């Protein structure tokens, strides 16, 4: 058995941190994990992607058709992978847009959020979540990554418990950040659970 999670976003958002957090949680649950980090040219602002593979695997990259879940820290980055992943892939999408230079330079505005979600939803189950807003309410924009990890845990895509995630958060963050990240994780977990219950989204 293997579970493949693709995390995408914009350089500087913490794509690698999300990948490491999910990996650590899976390791806490005694799974084997392989993660690959794709560093691009720039430090901040370009597209970044990370693959996390859980199970008895050796290859750092999955087959495109075998991706189970895409976590998009930025909506358009989610859309960028919508047509490149199998229809089984569930999309967790953070509703925090970052306008690419290619649009802003021409004075063009970011496409409407409902249109992006509809496009992704054409082929995939989508769980939209305003992780950045939740993170702001926790008091630290950086913890939006843990909100998304919470949503992933709620979607039961990985065989990893909430407790395992809490332990992983404790291992990865210092004492002050740890508490904020656990609140963020739980908020993300609750939000996604409620969302799926209301929409009757059942993921096996």
């Amino acid at each position, binding site marked *: 058995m293997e579970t493949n999670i693709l995390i995408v976003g914009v350089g500087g958002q913490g794509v690698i941190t999300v990948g490491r957090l999910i990996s650590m949680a899976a390791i806490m649950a005694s799974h084997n994990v*392989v993660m690959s980090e794709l560093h691009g040219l*720039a*430090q901040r602002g370009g597209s970044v992607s990370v693959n996390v593979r859980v199970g008895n695997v050796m*290859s750092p*990259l999955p087959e495109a058709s075998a991706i189970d879940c895409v976590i998009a820290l930025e909506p*358009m980055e989610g859309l960028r992978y919508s*047509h490149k992943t199998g229809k089984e892939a569930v999309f967790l999408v953070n509703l925090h847009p*970052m306008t690419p230079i290619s649009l*802003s330079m021409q004075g063009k*505005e970011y496409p409407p959020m409902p249109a992006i979600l509809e496009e992704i939803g054409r082929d995939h189950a989508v769980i939209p979540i305003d992780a950045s807003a939740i993170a702001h309410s926790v008091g630290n924009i950086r913890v939006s990554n843990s909100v998304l990890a919470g949503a992933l845990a709620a979607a039961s895509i990985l065989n990893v418990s909430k407790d395992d995630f809490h332990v992983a958060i404790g291992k990865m963050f210092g004492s002050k950040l740890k508490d904020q990240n656990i609140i963020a994780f739980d908020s993300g977990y609750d939000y996604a659970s409620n969302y799926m219950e209301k929409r009757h989204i059942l993921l096996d």
Partner: protein
Amino acid sequence: MSYYDEILEAKDGQVLFLLGNEAIARGAIESGISTAATYPGTPSSEVGDLLYAVYRKAGIHFEYSVNEKVALEVAFASASLGLRSMVFMKHVGMNVAADAMLSIAYTGTRGGLVIMTADDPSMHSSQNEQDNRHYADLGHLPMIEPTTPQEAKDFLQRAFDISERYRVPVIFRTTTMISHERGLVEVSHVGKPREIVPFESGKAEFNSLPQYAMRNKKLLEEKISKIKDVESDRFVSIERGKEDEWGAIASGVGYAYLHDVISKHGMDISMMKIGMTNPLPERSIIKFISEHPRIIIVEELDSYLEEKIRALCQLKGIDVEIYGKMNSYFPYDYEFNMDVVRSGVMKAMQKDDTHMLSIREESPLLAARTPVLCPGCPHRASFFTVKKALKLAGMSDAKISSDIGCYSLGVYEPFDMGDYMISMGSSIGVASGLQNALSERSVSFIGDSTFFHAGIPGLINAKLNNAQTTLIILDNRITAMTGQQPNPGSRDPQDLNAAGNISIENIARGIGIDFVKTVDPYNIGEMLHAVTESFKVDGPAVIISSRECAILRDAKEKKAGRHVVYAVNVEKCTGCEKCVEDFACPAISMSGGKATIDPDQCDECGVCAERYVCPFQAIEVV
């Protein structure tokens, strides 16, 4: 304890989740290295990041050398005295080190000397995807390639053992996916450093005068021949299929793709992993091939293994069907993945590949997100200003020669600065050459670290030939693109005015450049004046655009608790779009016909508030 300290302090038997490069650094410490030197280059940089963080505690000499050649010379010197030493670099860095490396191959070493190259198939952050396995042939050097982070650590130790035992430098080759892959790694105990081996005269051993080189060439051949006999087969592992018809041979990350494809799809193929790719384990290969009449060879980039294995089969008269690149089962270009490998294997076995994802059409809502200069990046201000200066001087058609670094991104719109970008330090040489042919003044850009690395000879040459060119040195006080490593101009990123920093301005003046001006790119007016003046100079002119990297500054401002909020005054903003069109900061975009600043992205540099960027002065501190 910091993340890197935890890796250093980990005890024998502990399992860590390490990046391939971190596993290599840990492996170096376990091997008891005394010296490590590098010039940072993606995808090798994290080896140095870890060693730089812990070297004092680990009791080793670590240095960011001025370039890869010097780094190798430093490591070699230490190894010649019997101390285990390591040098690491990205694949193109090996071109720079090659002059020294191919002689050090002949002289050999006393202590273990490992030369690591991190190749970059698909050119994620490189100008080419050269296959550095050819350097093993060129130098007659042994080469070892790991497949997993665990092997990255374990094989490195074995590389040191072999280097020491046979007194020959060993090439340790990774690719991006090995260097940047995280996996579970069981560590062993930290090794003890070796003692210096005294000797009276090194000339017969370490002097490459022809008379000595003649002898050393023969010795090198003997070493390689022994390593082939004794060591190469020890790096082979085989997983057998049920039947003996199909066999597959792979190395490095190619084996990981092959392994997962075969196990996932239940294919009946025996797999052979080769960990030492020079000299090849010929005995094991011949045996494996003799047992399997159909052989698939999986390797990224060139047909390195395939050519050697085909030659071996011809030599030994083995009748076998080989499926590889040379008969088009696998591509020569770009990084592999499981889909590429599965597709090739299926084709060889004449089966339909039903697992390939049919790529659907991409959404029309998608917009490109090319890499961009960070918000607050001083290079953005420099490019903005130079573009303005060229326009004012009627030189908008001037050819622009750029170099390797974050500022390579100046080639993108709206700056469009980079007609040329070839290799480390090439900006100034190319700019001088252009001017000879075009008799128009040219402009070149180079970063501080790249200037030290290979730019200085170009500037000397420009002076010597009175080249009509303006060289803009973008001095952000750090080797930024590879992750904020120090360089000769700033030995300590936390203290930019540390004693001993080498002055770029003094170098330029020492070469005899008359026009040398240091400016602050955040002060657009000052820089505009200097650049415009430089265009009137006869001969080369140098402008040092000096301002620390935004990421460095950002961290310091945060630490100091300084925080300014810039926002657009919607009363003053006319919606002219000049800021987004000409300045292109990721933090500024248009919304409802007015410019708006994303406070989460804004770096608070304040350059957009200057009238050159916003003629209506609509961007204000609130």
